[in-house]
């Protein structure tokens, strides 16, 4: 497996307060990694450590399988905290600064990127006169300059209107599928991530609670019937032979999850009882995505 980013026991403390604790993150090549956590959970801090603008107090980082971080960082485009722009320069001039910095000979690169992020016709207006959404687009444009292989985007859709969110999302998906750019996108809003992320990292109070792929997650969040029985083997055979379904799995503590017959729980119950299985409980289960994350992120604040 090719990893673009891995961290090993990464920690950061500000004045003895641990902001990141022992984080082991794994971003595979091609992933759109949704990095989700509450305000203050440590998302920006992790992005700062990876991009080298803050130094870790513990642990290590590996980029593209290498420890020569400054070299590898040339392949990364970032937005950290908010889009940083030169207020007195126009969109084009802002990008020109980075074109020179990255040593890109092609002057058309700027126009192409401006078109791609929807800033093709802003003209000479200085960036300080931009709306937040326009600055965000300019930030994304700057991150895209130089054809990076990995994008670290800290709340990139912050401040965009719904149309803008869709546009940027489509752009990111296109960059991911066509140009094979790996991304780590942080957000505290699941709705934005769930449409594009291929895997998730959930961070809470500086600790990585879980890493999970989108597929695993959808299985986990599927609605199901959870039954607790005295004999799971017998239950399994009844499900397959009498009810003709293989759409179930068996969990510890004699729990069986069935993903069929959701609206016909009575039939399962009667079939099992008829065949001598003792059904201790039968509930309809399956948190939706939102609830799942909220629970992992620390539940609703009381």
């Amino acid at each position: 497996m090719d990893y673009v980013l891995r961290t090993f026991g990464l920690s950061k403390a500000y004045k003895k307060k641990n902001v990141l604790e022992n984080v082991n993150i794994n971003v595979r090549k091609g992933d759109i990694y949704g990095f989700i956590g509450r305000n203050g959970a440590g998302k920006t801090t992790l992005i700062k450590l990876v991009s080298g603008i803050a130094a870790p107090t513990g642990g290590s980082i590996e980029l593209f399988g290498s420890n020569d971080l400054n070299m590898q960082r040339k392949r990364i485009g970032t937005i950290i905290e908010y889009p940083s722009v030169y207020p007195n320069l126009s969109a084009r001039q802002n990008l020109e600064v980075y074109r020179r910095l990255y040593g890109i000979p092609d002057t058309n690169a700027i126009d192409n990127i401006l078109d791609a992020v929807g800033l093709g016709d802003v003209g000479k207006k200085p960036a300080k006169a931009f709306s937040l959404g326009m600055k965000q687009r300019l930030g994304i444009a700057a991150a895209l300059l130089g054809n990076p292989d990995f994008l670290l985007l800290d709340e990139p859709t912050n401040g965009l209107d719904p149309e803008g969110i869709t546009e940027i999302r489509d752009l990111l998906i296109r960059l991911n599928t066509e140009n094979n750019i790996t991304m780590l996108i942080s957000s505290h809003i699941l709705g934005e991530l769930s449409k594009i992320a291929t895997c998730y990292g959930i961070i809470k109070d500086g600790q990585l609670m879980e890493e999970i792929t989108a597929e695993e997650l959808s299985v986990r969040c599927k609605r199901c019937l959870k039954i607790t029985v005295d004999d799971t083997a017998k239950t399994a055979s009844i499900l397959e032979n009498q009810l003709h379904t293989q759409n179930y799995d068996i969990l510890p503590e004699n729990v069986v999850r069935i993903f069929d017959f959701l609206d016909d729980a009575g039939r399962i119950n009667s079939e099992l009882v008829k065949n001598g299985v003792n059904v201790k409980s039968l509930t309809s289960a399956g948190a939706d995505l939102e609830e799942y994350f909220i629970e992992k992120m620390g539940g609703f604040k009381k």
Partner: protein
Amino acid sequence: MINMLRSDMYKMFRAVSFRVLLITAAVICVFSAFFVNFSVKTTLEYQEQKRIEAESGETAPKDPIAAAAQDSFMEGMRLGFQSGMEASINASEQQTGQDFLDMEFTYPTVFEGMLDPLYGNSLITMLTAIFTSIFISGEFIHGTIKNSAARGVSRTQLYISKLLTCMAFSVIILAAEMLVLLLTELIIWEPGVFDADKAVKSIIGLLLGMFPYLAFISIFTAIAFCVRSGGATAVNIIFVMFGGLLFQMASSAASLDMTFAWPGTAMNLTAKYYENTWLAAAGVIASIVYIVLSSLIGITVFSRKDI
């Protein structure tokens, strides 16, 4: 590194402060050229007046009405200047014992006349202090420094590129000032005030004066990288304004003449190296030490701190 520098230069030429400060510098230079001219002229007139007084053996009668009528700005300045000059002449006469009437006052020659406006005061240095502070702290205030740092440009490279850019600005603004001074001098000064020998000396002086001048820029850069906020401008200006004074106090407390090691004094000493070569050499060496030391400190602090 070259790419970083190209990017910084691009920003410099497009900075609002670049244009504003360039124009300010030009205005200051035109004014200084007039002022140098004016002060020599006033001194000569004053000397002439004293001479007449001495010859007639009595004080020339002052006409109060005429004096009151002379209320134009220049005349007001002239009179103010004269009374100030009278005090300083009295003081220097007491010191040297030389009669004011025997002293010889001449207009500075064309290049010579640049030394005082450029290196004799801290006005021009102040402008570079403002530019350096705004240019560097702006990157922190707007967060744009993160973008360069996140792309694997090392802190040392970031620092040196900014330092060189601010030095480039300082040299550009100095060159522009020289041009403005030259033109003004050629227009307002008596025709023919040109002396090849003095011109060569002055040009060498102008170049030598750049050492302490650039030492200032290095210190401003280090301060801006440490302060990182809008406060950098204030700190740097205070540094220029009171640094010299502190230096004087410290060196008199230590009863050593170390004032050559204050870049402000060193600028003047090195520019007029032909008056005291040893002090000028000491000034150049002190400047190089400043440049190296302040950069080392600046880079160390910048590399250690999170952005």
